[in-house]
């Protein structure tokens, strides 16, 4: 039985389709990433899974429980880190965890036992009695993660868990999430950071306009959709632009402002050419998930 199973899920807001016939299947113990530009339907999908909004059509089951019919029951086994911070500003760190634990019907004795361990996990033991407004962004995010674990959930739903964090804080969250995956928890996360998805996720689905447009492991997605080498020609590319159309140098070119992105299987001929032109600044790197993402969803802004 998969942890999450979604079939033909559709949700309309007015006349616009936020989610359009989505299928997903997430195995137990898996870390699954939902990627997509703004407005692709990621957050709407998560809210549908939690049963806080209802679908226009389609089926959802979580650990075998049909949603939304058994959503309340199912949420008892789910931990949620929302995109927008909603810690309780009237309370201290510990009070936030106590009050949230009560919403799950967890008794005080169990909470007294769990909370110190969660604070340690989030490296917030020294802040246990601090008010929320004295915490940094990273600490708030860690507390939100600790809060999502108060019911010892089997499934974690994380909506952009590291957005707005500095690299140190982000790495710390990643480390904690890996830890949770090792403990056997199933994780479903949305993110805009391809690096995050590549590092954490076993499998990824890319959404656009409410539909799944690609799915696979990070490595497979890169192999399947994109040439392995990328050379970014950052400036002064005018002199060689005509050459880039030549398959001998480069199989596919994308232009973004000044920069030319050249995709290819063998980079040597283009590198030789560039080596002779010191005025051109370029970067040679392996293809990554971001290249796949941009190829599939386009370069134009989604506001």
């Amino acid at each position, binding site marked *: 039985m998969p942890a999450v199973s979604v079939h033909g899920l559709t949700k309309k807001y007015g006349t616009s389709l936020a989610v359009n016939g989505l299928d997903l299947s997430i195995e137990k113990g898996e870390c699954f990433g939902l990627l997509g530009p703004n407005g692709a339907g990621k957050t709407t999908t998560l809210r549908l899974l*939690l049963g806080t909004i209802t679908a226009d059509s389609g089926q959802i089951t979580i650990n075998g429980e049909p949603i939304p019919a058994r959503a309340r029951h199912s949420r008892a086994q789910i931990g949620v880190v929302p995109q927008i*911070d909603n810690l*309780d500003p009237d309370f201290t760190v510990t009070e936030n965890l106590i009050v949230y634990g009560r919403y799950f019907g967890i008794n005080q004795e169990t909470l007294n036992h769990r909370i110190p361990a969660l604070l340690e996990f989030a490296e917030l033991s020294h802040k246990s009695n601090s008010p929320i407004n004295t915490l940094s962004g990273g600490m708030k995010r860690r507390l939100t993660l600790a809060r999502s674990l108060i019911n010892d959930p089997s499934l974690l739903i994380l909506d952009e868990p590291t957005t707005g964090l500095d690299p140190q804080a982000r790495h710390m969250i990643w480390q904690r999430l890996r830890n949770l995956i090792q403990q056997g928890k199933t994780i479903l996360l949305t993110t805009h950071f391809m690096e995050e998805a590549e590092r954490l996720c076993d499998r990824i689905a890319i959404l656009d306009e409410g539909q799944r447009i690609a799915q696979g492991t990070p490595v497979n997605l890169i192999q399947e959709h994109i040439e392995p080498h990328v050379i970014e020609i950052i400036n002064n590319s005018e002199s060689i632009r005509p050459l880039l159309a030549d398959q001998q140098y480069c199989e596919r070119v994308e232009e973004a402002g000044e920069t030319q992105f050249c995709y290819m299987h063998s980079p040597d001929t283009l590198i030789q050419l560039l080596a002779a032109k010191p005025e051109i600044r370029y970067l040679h790197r392996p293809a990554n998930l971001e290249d796949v993402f941009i190829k599939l969803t386009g370069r134009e802004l989604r506001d």
Partner: protein
Amino acid sequence: MRLPRPSLRFIPIWRRNLLVWRKLAIPSMLGNLADPMFYMLALGFGLGRLLPEIGGMPYIAFLAAGTMCYATMNTATFESLYSAFSRMQIQRTWDAILNTPLTLDDIIIGEFAWSITKSGLSGLAILCAILILGIAHGPNLLWLIPLSLLIGMCFTGMALIITALAPNYDFFMYYFSLAITPMTLLCGVFFPTNQLPLLLQHISVLLPLTHAIDLARPLVAGHNPHHLIVHVTVLVLYGLTGLCLAINLIERRLQR
């Protein structure tokens, strides 16, 4: 349109609000006590000197009954407008709760119960003020506590509808200008409603604060209220209709 689905799961939400209140209990109770006391002292003695007794009551006692209803109405209204709106829209507390095994009905019923509790505390403060100032005495005064819960229920239900519809805090001014202020002036807080022109008297009968005051005034005077069932029914109906509408409206709002 559906009916509320009550359950005891509202209790953790009620306890959350209680925990917040406990941090601010002293200034909150002081406000509950001081504001009506100033009203009763200033108007009661100021106007009271000019007025003979009204309906066999000294003016200050007449005013105390009105003030008790008016202040309790305000407590419920402020809690269910500004505080509830903050939790819904600004702090996103309700969003956080909806990700747990609680439901929207639990949240709204929790808010409803909390606002009623706060109204009761407000009523208790005014009862203390009445006793401290020696305005009235007698066992009938104790009925002011359940009455304040009833008034809290009525005005919480009404205010939650406004909160459900509000795009922002400024929207609440419509409710104050078009509902709360007219009620304060037309329902007999400061003078008997039979002083009003007939049309306004008819309007006044439809407003819930009138019924609250018709219950409070005899209790302060030491009598038993007339038409008890009618007044209680009006207050309960306003409150429960409000609760029911608010749940439906907020459910629709959060689906967006």
